């Protein structure tokens, strides 16, 4: 009886494992066959598989976005027909939400870094992690099947009774695709929660967890508690579409608002799934660039959990004009203001972190500052939308389109690129040219602002969303937005040039090119299969940078700096 319980894993014991070559082989070099990649249970390899998949879907969604912006250059339906445009924006929505933004940071950097950051050898359920990738790819294939079958024209919101009775697109296939990708989220969520609870190394208390891990813990809570309600909502719409059951069909006595309640109960927490990991990344980037302890650790960590919990109580602000009762709208409006407070705390704390810092302005920091700037504008316009009287005028217009793109593209995608640049040396073992990184960050920022800032004005002037043919008075701002979109498209291609170049010609990065604190920087880059030779013991706070500012060792760090260093 006792023998089974106290069996201790030899690998985890403190005495060093013989420093054999086999141990030091990097996870990348461990096996080159396709089979070794497709049947791996190593969290680092699965992160790479996810990175490749979501990049593919990022470009699919990007093509749809390019079609939309090109078509909107002119008020008349020149490039696409009405149906074509409806299919383009629906596809853009579905792919970008479920196949890029929701999995973006958690499944790539979350998978790669959480075990490394908490001193574990892998996630709690490696096989579930691989299953999550396969389910994600299956969902992706179903989405491509939707495109082949004629596309879907219900928008990513699938509002009934249009999606269930009146739409003639491949709605059932689209519902199946999103239904399948939901399970990929649930498995990732379960994996993260159990790993953070059960696999922290000795000394890694909750108070010493990196904020990246806190943010992903909060995201995992939303994954697990929100996705099932989306699953049942999609099943009910699919049943109504295939068998004509009338749950949302008013002719049978059903209530179309029931679908909106179930859908937004998932979809608002889903936007927090998209932003919380990005906040985790920014906390890491800001503290490293400032080389200083985060300002108010427990406030920032606590506000991540607060966003996750209160995020479930605000969905009604999507339904202020949808026929929801005035009193419920007033309650949801109040709760939407309460949920904005934790975000404000985070932004002010990041700014305070820069105070008395030792700041090196490099690629990742520019992305982080881009995040803070754009997320602040996005968040505050969100507060405006929470105001009932303003929302009645601007909901379902381009004001809302601008608001959520400021947060999702300006915020979450900038942080994704910031994470890509910050941990690139650790993931690939190569340094890249930082000048190019800064240039691409600035170009993305400018392209973004030029694309989406005009849309605030378009929205307030009264141009509704999803409008393919619009009055000529809106054309100038639409042209400006489309020009900005072309700059943004080019700017997004830029990082892939010098990052791929660095794979071949980049100087090998040492274990800690940025002089950062965090267990992932104590392993060689790229780290070996089992992450740590001996399980580390943590005895310091999360971001204990040397108080005397930046030591010589950690400056200069990047490729460019090395040439002239």
């Amino acid at each position: 009886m006792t023998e089974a319980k106290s069996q201790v894993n030899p690998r985890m014991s403190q005495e060093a494992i013989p420093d054999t070559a086999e141990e030091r082989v990097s996870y990348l070099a461990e096996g080159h066959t396709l089979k070794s990649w497709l049947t791996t249970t190593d969290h680092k390899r699965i992160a790479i598989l996810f990175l490749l998949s979501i990049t593919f879907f990022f470009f699919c969604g990007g093509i749809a976005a390019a079609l939309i912006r090109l078509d909107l250059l002119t008020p008349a339906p020149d490039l696409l027909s009405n149906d074509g445009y409806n299919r383009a924006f629906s596809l853009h929505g579905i792919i970008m939400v479920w196949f890029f933004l929701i999995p973006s940071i958690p499944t790539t950097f979350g998978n790669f870094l959480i075990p490394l950051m908490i001193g574990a050898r892998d996630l709690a359920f490696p096989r579930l992690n691989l299953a999550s990738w396969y389910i994600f790819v299956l969902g992706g294939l179903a989405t491509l099947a939707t495109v082949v079958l004629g596309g879907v024209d219900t928008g990513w919101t699938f509002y009934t009774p249009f999606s269930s009775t009146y739409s003639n697109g491949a709605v059932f296939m689209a519902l199946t695709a999103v239904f399948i990708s939901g399970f990929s989220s649930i498995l990732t969520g379960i994996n993260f929660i159990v790993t953070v609870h059960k696999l922290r190394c000795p000394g890694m208390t909750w108070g010493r967890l990196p904020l990246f891990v806190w943010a992903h813990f909060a995201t995992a809570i939303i994954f697990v508690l929100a996705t099932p309600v989306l699953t049942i909502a999609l099943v009910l719409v699919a049943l109504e579409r295939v068998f004509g059951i009338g749950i949302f069909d008013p002719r049978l006595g059903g209530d179309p608002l029931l679908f909106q309640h179930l859908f937004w109960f998932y979809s608002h927490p889903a936007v927090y799934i998209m932003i919380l990991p990005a906040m985790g990344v920014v906390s890491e980037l800001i503290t490293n660039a400032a080389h200083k302890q985060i300002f108010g650790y427990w406030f920032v960590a606590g506000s991540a959990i607060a966003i996750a919990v209160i995020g479930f109580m605000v969905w009604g602000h999507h339904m202020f004009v949808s026929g929801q009762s005035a009193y419920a709208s007033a309650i949801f409006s109040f709760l939407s203001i309460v949920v904005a407070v934790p975000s404000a705390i985070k932004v002010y704390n990041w700014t305070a972190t820069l105070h008395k810092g030792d700041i090196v302005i490099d690629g990742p920091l520019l992305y982080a500052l881009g995040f803070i700037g754009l997320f602040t504008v996005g968040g505050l316009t969100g507060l405006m939308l929470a105001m009932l009287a303003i929302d009645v005028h601007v909901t379902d217009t381009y004001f809302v389109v601008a608001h959520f793109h400021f947060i999702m593209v300006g915020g979450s995608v900038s942080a994704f690129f910031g994470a890509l640049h910050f941990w690139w040396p650790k993931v690939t073992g190569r340094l890249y040219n930082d000048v190019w990184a800064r240039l691409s960050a600035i170009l993305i920022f400018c392209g973004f602002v030029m694309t989406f800032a005009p849309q605030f004005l378009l929205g307030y002037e009264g141009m509704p969303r999803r409008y393919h043919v619009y009055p000529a008075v809106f054309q100038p701002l639409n042209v400006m937005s489309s020009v900005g979109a072309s700059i943004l498209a080019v700017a997004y291609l830029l990082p892939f040039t010098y990052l791929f170049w660095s794979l071949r010609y980049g100087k090998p990065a040492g274990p800690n090119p940025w002089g950062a604190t965090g267990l992932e920087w104590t392993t060689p880059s790229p780290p070996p299969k089992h992450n740590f030779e001996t399980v580390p013991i943590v005895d310091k706070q999360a971001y204990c940078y040397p108080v005397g500012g930046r030591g010589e060792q950690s400056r200069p760090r990047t490729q460019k700096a090395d040439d002239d260093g």
Partner: protein
Amino acid sequence: MKAVRTILLAWAALLALLALTVAASFAPLGRVLPYVSYGIAIAKTAIVAWIFMDLRKRDGLQRIAVGAGVVWLAILFVLMFGDILTRGWPS
């Protein structure tokens, strides 16, 4: 063997509650009936969770994991019915 006795006891209690809920549906309770039948259902669930699913021996973390589902459903129902039941009210 104490565990077997508690399980059998719990089983008997569950069947008794089942009989009670069926009987309650025939009693002329009118508008109170839903609260009674769901109260009994919650009691049955408590027995199944506490004894069959062994929540009594599990630590706080696992109880939170089980309770979270119920709490989140409560959030959905309370706020959704906050809308549905107050739709007709004149503002």
